[in-house]
């Protein structure tokens, strides 16, 4: 494998979805263009922040990157392989290598499965051995007691559920993880814990991470580069420090200015 080559390359990525609200009585719904020709790359071991408001297309972009959605144009290459239009059956062997952590851990954990099954199921599918040991290790990694194997998701707190989501993703030893707004539903105390945990895991396991968020303040600590999306287009893609120190796009400036800092002296007019 060529280590100099980025793990993920995106070229002129376009994606349209049917606009059901605008559907005429007869005939197909018109297409709504969500992603309008995006190009960027994620190098191996990098952490890329993807920021934008609602309707910016950030979640759609994330789901296209791991091919939960099929792009309508352009190309996505994963480790040099073009996966843009790969059928689901051919994607399956690649699935182990690209994982996702979801926004809402309650919705993303099957309510009728125990934690052990949620983490162990994918391991079994991909032919891992010593499933029990790997599940225990994954729980250790995310700082949950091993006894949680026999718990159901609804018996856990929000922060604990999100850790299970992380454990499920890292247990497969993937190369790439997509984290979609993973702390936006959590209280600040668990938010900080989950972010610190993720930061440690990325370093320890040498993961490549795309971190989607609407909140620039959680991006700063975690990400080396930031990509700002606005209405399906990249308005800024730069090193994090630069984005915070001297944002070039007007929209980035606007996003930064809108964040209420916990400080009554901050001018915020």
């Amino acid at each position, binding site marked *: 494998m060529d280590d100099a080559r980025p793990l993920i390359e995106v070229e002129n990525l376009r994606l349209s979805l049917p606009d059901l609200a605008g559907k005429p009585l007869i005939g197909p719904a018109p297409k709504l263009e969500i992603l309008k020709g995006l190009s960027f790359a994620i190098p191996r071991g990098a952490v890329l922040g993807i920021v934008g408001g609602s309707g910016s297309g950030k979640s759609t972009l994330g*789901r296209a990157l*791991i091919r*939960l959605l099929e792009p309508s144009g352009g190309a996505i290459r994963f480790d040099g392989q073009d996966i843009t239009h790969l059928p*689901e059956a051919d*994607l*399956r*062997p690649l*699935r*182990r290598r*690209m*994982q*996702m952590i*979801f*926004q*809402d851990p309650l*919705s*993303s*954990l*099957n*309510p*009728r*499965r125990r934690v052990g099954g949620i983490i162990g*199921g*994918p391991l079994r*599918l*991909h032919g891992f051995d010593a499933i029990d040991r790997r599940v225990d290790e994954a729980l250790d990694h995310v700082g949950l007691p091993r006894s949680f194997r026999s718990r*159901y998701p*609804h018996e856990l707190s929000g922060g604990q559920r999100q850790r299970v989501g992380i454990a*499920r993703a890292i247990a*497969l030893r993937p190369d790439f993880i997509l984290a979609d707004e993973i702390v936006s539903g959590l209280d600040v105390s668990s938010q900080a814990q989950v972010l610190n945990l993720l930061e440690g895991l990325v370093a320890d396991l040498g993961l490549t991470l795309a971190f989607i968020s609407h909140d620039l303040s959680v991006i700063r600590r975690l990400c080396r580069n930031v990509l700002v999306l606005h209405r399906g287009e990249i308005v800024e893609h730069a090193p994090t420090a630069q984005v915070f120190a001297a944002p070039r796009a007007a929209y980035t400036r606007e996003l930064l200015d809108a964040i209420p800092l916990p400080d009554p002296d901050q001018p915020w007019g």
Partner: protein
Amino acid sequence: MLDGRGAIRRRAGARLWLSGGWLLLLVTVALFAPLVAPQDPLAQDLMSGRLPPFWSAQAEPGFWLGTDSLGRDVLSRVIWGARVALTVACIAGPLTALIGGALGLIAGFYRGWADRIISRLVDIWMAFPPVLFSILLIAVLGTGLTSIILAIVVIDWTRFARVVRAEAMNQGAMDYVAAAQVAGFSRLRTMTAEILPNVLPTLVALLSLEMGIAVIVEAILSFVNLSLSTDAPTWGGMIAEGRTSIHQAWWVLAFPLVALFLTVLSFSQFGEGLKDRFDPVLR
């Protein structure tokens, strides 16, 4: 929080025990009808017609719930009638659930053309008036237990298909389904191992309800004399006969009616109770 949940559980418990108790009793007497029934349900004795129930002064020992106009023992006929009712419920219910549930699951999870075909079929099916439809079916198939069961399955599968389809669509929108796809699980495995367990509580509750409905349908068809032979003991047949002598012998109508009512109610309550009691997920 735990205490509040406990209170809800206790109520569900009472409902479950009462309805389950009645159904258990009914199943037992139906299974052992030849041993339990005090009289031969078909034996006529015109000399002892229209005997009142046991608490009345004119009652005769051995005929606990009285006799009908032909002198047949009402209790024994109710017990043998339970056999017919439960046979229909226990075969027609699960069969309907299996067919309707499978089609609903496929339509709701796979969507696309499978959904279009199944949904149109359901729409067309539901445009037929169900009672006329069943009478028509019996007319074609001929009377008998098999025909009744078949009629119920053919008519009622749409109920399961609609509910399960909607529920499968709800569940399909949850992220745990996307998570299964990210893990690399096949569509079929996702449907059977992820969606089905989450649809199952609804399916079980609906099945129990359907078994009650099957009992009613059997009674209706017997009432209009479209089920078994005329003198065979069925609740619907007894109600039909009792109707003609309601002023002289109300008990001929009342006891099968009460049995019918309690059974249908118990089936619906039993399903809901099961769902509340054994579903690990709080709603």
